[in-house]
């Protein structure tokens, strides 16, 4: 063993000293079980009763029982009750059973929710059961593989049981959690606060529990826990409805006028902020240019010149994006935030997620130390590499790599674009409930959305997520009960900095429902008066389509009356900033 191996062994040995593993062959279990999973055993008779009650309670036919399997140890008298695979659709009703209606002030964002919570944890839900402590009824979850987010870093934690208020008041049906139910691979995120009254000592807040299967989006367990004034809250009490109606009757007109005036004032303020940010960014760029001009470097030709140019810009806070291609063909695209030369946040957005995360200085270091620089080019005015292809060690085959599509936005530029987008956006609204596009991990920080178009069969929204500008079109009329929206939606995103000059386009030709296309004009176009026209190509009927144009976007909807399957529909936009034609292809 090399000296490095010996030091590693010594380090690991000291770190794990005192930790012992259990020999699985000596444990009194006869089936493979994940760690810490409680052996939940009930009588066969109870199993039959609960399975039957679940089928009745979920309002389904007997096929519901297919999600539940008895995984026994060969003993016909006792079996644990277990979901045989991760099934979110079946698990959520169990976890939601008996929930009260909450009245609370929404946190508004996950970050705010985290701040309000004592701990934020994630892991797997092993089992759930209804329990009673001091006459109060709870749903109690047993957890495993729990890690805690501390100072931005996940670490182990002792949270292994949490509980929340839940009373099974429907005496005509058996409580589905009267006996424990085990889950398979049901992951969760919990925003918890201490609660000494329950076993485990921790409880999620009213917005604080999300569960999911595999890579599917997490769903809120307390999905009906909306505040009393939330218009999407289907469980709003009759009293709240009456109060709301009274408020509207008493002061509706005045409030509407006040709202409109307030919105206009907000928009003016946002526009002023956008102008100020743009001026600040232009000033910063001008100062950079003056500093760079003093260097006397016009379009750097060498690594040394480029590095000197980059250092002269003194850009210490920026966002960097690139795609890395490795010798074996692997590819990964990453977006990172850099502060004082240190990467403070990185998200892999394409390909594999184990690529290198390198700030500009790291790229220069690599280029300078590589045995062979196969290709390199630099930004003409700021010097950072825009393309990099290196063989770090000539004697080591397989370590070659390229970094391409490198783009950099300074903090000043990002703030300027943020301010422009803020001025561009219509008034914010809360995300409508039940719409997957606004609740999945990819859109997890969507606290507000912006209604662009409202149509009878579908609505179009803009929203901001992870430095991207996104558009989502959501179909209405689904069987969602509490919401008017169906679970069908489509969307697309682009980096906010690209939105400065490029439109955001989404075109869908669906097998059922209307076809549609939305062109969200770029920020540049927002400063101009532009128009849009739609037409179908020859042999298509012109009736049955609608075009809704606002200052921000053009929304073309082709209903079933138009034989879109035979026609290509064109959307033509005329703008002093540049004309463009977009195509909705046949379905």
């Amino acid at each position: 063993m090399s000296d490095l191996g010996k030091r590693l062994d010594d380090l690991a040995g000291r770190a794990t000293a005192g930790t012992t593993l259990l020999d699985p062959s000596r444990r009194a279990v006869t089936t493979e079980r994940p760690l810490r999973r409680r052996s939940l055993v009930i009588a066969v008779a109870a199993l039959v009763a609960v399975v039957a009650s679940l089928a009745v309670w979920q309002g389904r036919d007997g096929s519901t029982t297919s999600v539940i399997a008895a995984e026994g140890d060969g003993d016909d008298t006792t079996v644990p009750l277990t979901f045989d695979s991760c099934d979110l659709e079946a698990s959520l009703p169990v976890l939601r059973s008996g929930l009260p209606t909450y009245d609370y002030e929404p946190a508004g964002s996950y970050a705010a929710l985290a701040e309000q919570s004592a701990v934020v944890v994630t892991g797997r839900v092993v089992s759930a059961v209804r329990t009673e402590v001091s006459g109060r009824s709870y749903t109690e979850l047993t957890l495993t593989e729990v890690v805690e987010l501390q100072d931005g870093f996940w670490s182990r934690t002792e949270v292994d049981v949490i509980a929340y208020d839940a009373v099974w008041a429907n005496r005509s049906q058996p409580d589905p959690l009267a006996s424990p139910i085990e889950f398979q691979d049901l992951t969760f995120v919990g925003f918890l606060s201490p609660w000494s009254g329950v076993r485990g000592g921790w409880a999620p807040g009213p917005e604080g529990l999300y569960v999911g299967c595999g890579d599917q989006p997490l769903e809120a367990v307390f999905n009906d826990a909306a505040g009393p004034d939330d218009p999407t809250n289907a469980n709003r009490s009759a009293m709240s409805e009456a109060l709301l109606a009274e408020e509207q009757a008493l002061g509706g007109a005045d409030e509407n006028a006040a709202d409109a005036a307030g919105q206009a004032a907000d928009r003016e303020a946002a526009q002023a902020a956008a102008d100020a940010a743009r001026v600040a960014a232009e000033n910063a760029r001008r100062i950079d240019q003056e500093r760079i001009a003093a260097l006397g470097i016009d379009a750097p030709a060498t690594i040394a010149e480029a590095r000197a140019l980059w250092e002269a810009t003194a850009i210490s806070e920026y966002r960097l994006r690139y795609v890395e291609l490795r010798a074996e063909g692997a590819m990964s695209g990453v977006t990172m935030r850099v502060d004082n030369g240190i990467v403070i946040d990185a998200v892999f957005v394409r390909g594999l997620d184990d690529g290198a995360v390198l700030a500009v200085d790291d790229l220069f270091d690599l280029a300078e130390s590589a045995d062979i620089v196969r290709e390199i080019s630099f930004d003409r005015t700021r010097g950072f590499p825009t393309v990099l292809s290196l063989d770090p060690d000539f004697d080591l085959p397989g370590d070659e790599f390229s970094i391409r599509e490198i783009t950099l936005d300074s903090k000043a530029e990002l703030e300027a674009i943020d301010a422009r987008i803020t001025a561009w956006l219509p008034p914010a609204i809360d995300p409508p409930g039940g719409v997957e596009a606004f609740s999945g991990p990819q859109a997890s920080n969507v606290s507000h959305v912006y209604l662009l178009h409202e149509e009878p069969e579908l609505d179009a929204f803009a929203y901001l997520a992870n430095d991207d500008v996104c558009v989502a079109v959501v179909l209405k009329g689904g069987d969602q009960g509490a919401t008017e929206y169906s679970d069908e939606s489509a969307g697309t995103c682009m980096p906010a900095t690209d939105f400065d000059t490029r439109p955001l386009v989404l075109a869908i030709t669906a097998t059922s429902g209307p076809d549609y296309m939305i062109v969200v004009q770029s920020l540049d176009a927002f400063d101009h008066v532009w128009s849009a026209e739609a037409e179908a190509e020859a042999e298509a009927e012109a009736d049955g389509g609608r075009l809704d144009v606002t200052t921000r976007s053009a929304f073309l909807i082709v209903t079933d009356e138009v034989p879109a399957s035979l026609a290509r529909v064109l959307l033509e936009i005329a703008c002093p900033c540049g004309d463009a034609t977009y195509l909705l292809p046949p379905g």
Partner: protein
Amino acid sequence: MMDFSDFFTNEADQLLRFCWMLTLDNEEAADLAQEVMHRAYARWDDLQGADQNPAGGVRTVAVNLSRSRWRRVRRFRALMPRLAPASTVSVEVASDPDLANALVGLAMRQRQVIALRYWADLTLGECAREMGISLGSVKQHLARAHRHLASVLDPTTLEELVL
């Protein structure tokens, strides 16, 4: 045929150390190693079949499991994009802070290849087999790990260490 209990007695501590090198966290390593042992026990017949290397087999399971756990943590971290990750060195590793700090800065794949190459004393080909990736990828991860270690540790010291 080796009895699982004997294998456990011989390899549990080694596996625990290996898992610690992958996770740099004592609790996480213990959970990971325990889960690996459970899986090894459940598939013990397969693991010790002809030409099988049970110790290598459990390391492969550990590599794969640690990777999936790491992916999961990262997925959840995406929920809180404004909370930047911060590298910290656990108190247990104060015995060799330079090396511990160097390990913290390595990517998961780089830590895996360093542990397999220098701690488990495997050839590059064996590393590739246990990690389930190509030889070229192993070389690349190793080269990057070397570069990082050399940037944190004294390059001359690193050269002596890996010989």
